[in-house]
C-alpha cells in the first residue's frame, strides 16, 4: 500500500515535472573549465537525472578573474543560476544578503546525506544563526610544494630534512629560499598573490597570529604589531634576501623555476611529468613566531532563492555532496566530511600524495585551519587594501606607516 502511494506520488511528480519542461533545467555556474572536473560533474549530474527523469543539469564555466562580478550581473539581471560556486572571500556578501536558499531542512531530508558527518568548524563561514546557506565542496589547505632538486643543488636542507630535525620554521624556510635564489633560481612564491591578491599572504601572517581585522570584522588590525612584524618579514624576504620574487616578475614553480610555492594542494595536478619532472615534496606551512597554524581556502555551492526550482536545486546539491559523491570529488576538492578525512579515502583518489602528506597537510589542515580573510563588501575592501599595500612593495617602504594608512582607509568600510 505504502509502496503504491510512493509510486503514485512519483508518477504524479514526474508528470507534473514533465508538463513544465522549462522548469526542470538546473544551471550551476562554476569557475573551472578543466575537462577532468567537468567530466566528473557530468557523471554526478547523470546519476541524479537517472532518478529524476526530465531534469537536465548544465554547468556554466565563467572565467575566474571576473567570476563574482559576472555572477552578480546575472543575479541583478534577473537571471540567477539555480546553483553557483561561491568563493570564500565573498561568503559574507552572499550569506548575509538573503539571496541563498537555506539548506538544513533539504539536506536532513535527503536520503543518505548524513548531515551530522559535516564538520562544524569548516562550515562556520557559510552559516547564519546555525542555518547552512552554502556547502563547501572544496576546503583546500594551503601548503608548500618544494622542488628538492633545486634545493639540494643550492646546498640547502630540504623541508623534509628540517621537519625531521624539528626545525621547520619560517626563518629556516626563508633561508633555504634565499640560498636557492642566490643560486640563480627563484626562492619561494606565494602563488596567485602577484602583489594583488594580498589575502593569500594570510598563509604567512597567520604564523605571526596576525589578521587583517578583528574577529567580529569591526576593527582594522593591519596596524597591530603582529601584522607589522609579519609584513616586515615578507618585505625583507623580497627586498633584503631576495628569497621571494619581487613585483612584476612572472615565475612558475611548476615549470621548475622556483624552490618552493605556497598554494592549495589541488595544484598537484600541475606537477610536470616526463623530462621536465623534478623531485617534489608537499609539506605543511612552517611554524611561525606564534606557533603552529593552518590556513584554508574554500569554495562552496549555494542555491538561489529566486530560482524557479529551488527545491530541486537543493535536492541536487544534497546529491552532489552526499558521502558517495564527496568521495569522488575528493580527488580534486578536499571535503568537509569527517568520514572522508583519512589517508585511506583521500589516498585512493589522490595517488600523487603519500599518506604522510595527506595526514600532515590535508587532514590536519582542514580540521584546524583558519579560512582566508572574509568580510562583507569584500571587493571594495580588497581593492582599497591592494591600492594602499602597493606602496609597501618598494625597497625603502616604511612598513608600519603603510599599514597604518591601510587601517585609516578601510576602517570606514568595516
Amino acid at each position: 500500500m505504502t509502496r503504491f502511494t510512493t509510486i503514485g506520488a512519483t508518477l504524479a511528480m514526474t508528470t507534473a515535472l514533465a508538463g513544465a519542461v522549462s522548469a526542470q533545467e538546473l544551471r550551476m555556474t562554476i569557475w573551472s573549465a578543466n575537462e577532468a572536473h567537468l567530466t566528473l560533474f557530468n557523471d554526478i549530474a547523470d546519476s541524479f537525472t537517472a532518478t529524476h527523469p526530465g531534469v537536465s543539469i548544465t554547468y556554466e564555466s565563467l572565467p575566474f578573474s571576473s567570476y563574482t562580478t559576472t555572477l552578480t550581473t546575472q543575479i541583478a539581471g534577473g537571471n540567477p543560476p539555480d546553483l553557483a560556486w561561491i568563493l570564500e572571500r565573498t561568503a559574507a556578501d552572499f550569506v548575509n544578503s538573503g539571496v541563498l536558499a537555506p539548506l538544513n531542512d533539504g539536506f536532513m531530508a535527503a536520503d543518505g546525506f548524513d548531515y551530522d558527518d559535516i564538520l562544524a568548524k569548516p562550515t562556520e563561514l557559510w552559516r547564519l544563526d546555525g542555518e547552512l546557506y552554502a556547502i563547501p565542496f572544496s576546503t583546500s589547505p594551503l601548503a608548500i610544494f618544494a622542488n628538492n632538486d633545486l634545493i639540494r643543488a643550492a646546498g640547502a636542507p630540504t623541508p623534509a630534512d628540517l621537519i625531521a630535525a624539528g626545525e621547520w620554521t619560517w626563518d629556516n624556510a626563508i633561508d633555504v629560499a634565499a640560498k636557492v635564489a642566490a643560486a640563480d633560481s627563484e626562492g619561494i612564491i606565494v602563488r596567485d598573490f602577484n602583489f594583488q591578491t594580498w589575502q593569500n599572504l594570510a598563509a604567512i601572517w597567520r604564523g605571526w597570529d596576525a589578521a587583517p581585522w578583528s574577529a567580529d570584522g569591526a576593527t582594522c588590525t593591519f596596524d597591530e604589531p603582529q601584522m607589522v612584524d609579519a609584513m616586515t618579514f615578507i618585505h625583507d624576504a623580497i627586498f633584503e634576501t631576495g628569497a621571494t620574487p619581487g613585483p612584476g616578475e612572472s615565475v612558475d614553480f611548476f615549470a621548475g623555476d622556483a624552490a618552493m610555492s605556497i598554494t592549495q594542494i589541488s595544484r598537484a595536478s600541475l606537477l610536470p611529468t616526463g623530462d621536465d619532472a623534478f623531485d617534489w615534496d608537499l609539506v605543511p606551512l612552517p611554524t611561525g613566531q606564534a606557533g603552529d597554524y593552518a590556513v584554508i581556502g574554500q569554495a562552496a555551492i549555494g542555491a538561489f532563492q529566486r530560482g524557479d526550482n529551488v527545491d530541486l536545486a537543493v535536492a541536487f546539491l544534497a546529491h552532489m555532496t552526499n558521502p558517495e559523491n564527496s568521495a569522488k570529488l575528493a580527488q580534486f576538492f578536499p571535503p568537509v566530511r569527517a568520514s572522508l578525512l583519512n589517508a585511506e579515502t583521500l589516498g585512493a583518489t589522490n595517488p600523487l600524495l603519500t599518506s604522510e602528506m595527506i595526514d600532515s597537510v590535508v587532514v590536519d589542515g582542514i580540521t584546524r585551519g583558519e579560512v582566508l580573510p572574509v568580510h562583507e563588501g569584500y571587493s571594495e575592501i580588497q581593492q582599497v587594501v591592494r591600492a594602499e599595500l602597493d606602496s609597501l612593495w618598494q625597497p625603502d617602504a616604511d612598513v608600519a606607516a603603510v599599514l597604518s594608512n591601510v587601517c585609516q582607509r578601510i576602517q570606514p568600510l568595516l
Partner: protein
Amino acid sequence: MTVVASPSELSRRKRPYWTMARRDSLAGYVFVAPQAIGIAVFVLVPLLLVFWYSLHEWNVLAQTFRFKGLENYHRLLSDPGLPEVLIATAIFSIFLVVFNMSLALLLAVLLNQKLRGITVFRTLFFSPVVVSLVAWTIVWSFLLQNNGGLNGILDHFGIEGPNWLRHPTTAMIAVVVVQVFKNVGLNMILFLAALQGVPKELYEAARVDGIPAFRQFRRITLPMISPTVMLTSIITIVGSLQVFAQIAVLTQGGPGMSTTVLVYYLYQQAFEFHNFGYGATLSILLFVIVAALTFLQWQMRKRIVFYEN
C-alpha cells in the same frame, strides 16, 4: 466650368497641400528621426536617470532600491580616494593629449616629405590603429613586465630598466604611451591631409622672401592647419576621459591609485563594489568635466584658430 477665376483663387487651387517646402520638412524629420529618437532614448533619458539614481542606493544582491537623498554627494566630497583619482585623470589626459598631438604632428610632417616608399611608412605607423585594442594592451603588458621584453631590450644596451608597471610615475607613463602609440595614427592622417591642403603658393612666396623653413612652419603651416588641430584636440581630450580597457588590462588602476582614472573608478564603484548610487554620482562628475572642457575649447577656438574655411 467656364467661370474665370481670380488670380488669387487660381494660385490657391493649383498649389496642393504638399508643397515642396512641406514635403521637404517631412523628409527632414523622417531623415533625422532615427537619430534624434535614439539620442533621446539612449542618451538624454539616461542622463536624467543618472541624476535620479545618484539620489538612491541599489543593492543588487538583496534587490533593494532606496532613496538616500544627498548622501552620495556627501560621500563624493569626503571620499579620500577621489582627489587621487582626479589628479590621475588630469595627469593622464594632459600628458596624453600633449604627447599624442606632438607625435602626430611630427609624424605627419615626416610623412609629408618627398621620399621613396613613404606609403610603406605611413601604413606601418597607422597599423596599431587597426590592431584590436585589448590585444595591443595585452601585448604591452607582457613587454612592460619587470622581466619582459622592453627591459630585455634596454638590458642589451646596458641600461637597467625600471619595473614599469609597479612605480606610480612609470606606470602612468606606460598607460599614456601605450595609448598614444595605439591611436596616434588617426591624428597623424588627419594632420597629413591638412598639411597637404595648405596651398603651395604660400611656401613659394615665403621662399622667395627667404624665410627659413622653421619660421615657414610657424608662420604658415601651423596657422593653416589650426582648425584641424583644434578639432582633433577636442576629440582627443574627450576620448582620453573615456579610456578604460587599457587601464583595466595594464594596471587595474595601480600601483596605489596612481592610474585610477575617473571612468575606471566609476566602473569599480558601480559594477565591482556595487555602489551603483555612488557610481551614478561619479558619472555626473564625469559629465560635468567633459562638458566644461568642451565648452572651454569651443571658446578658445574663436581666439586660437586663425583660419577657418
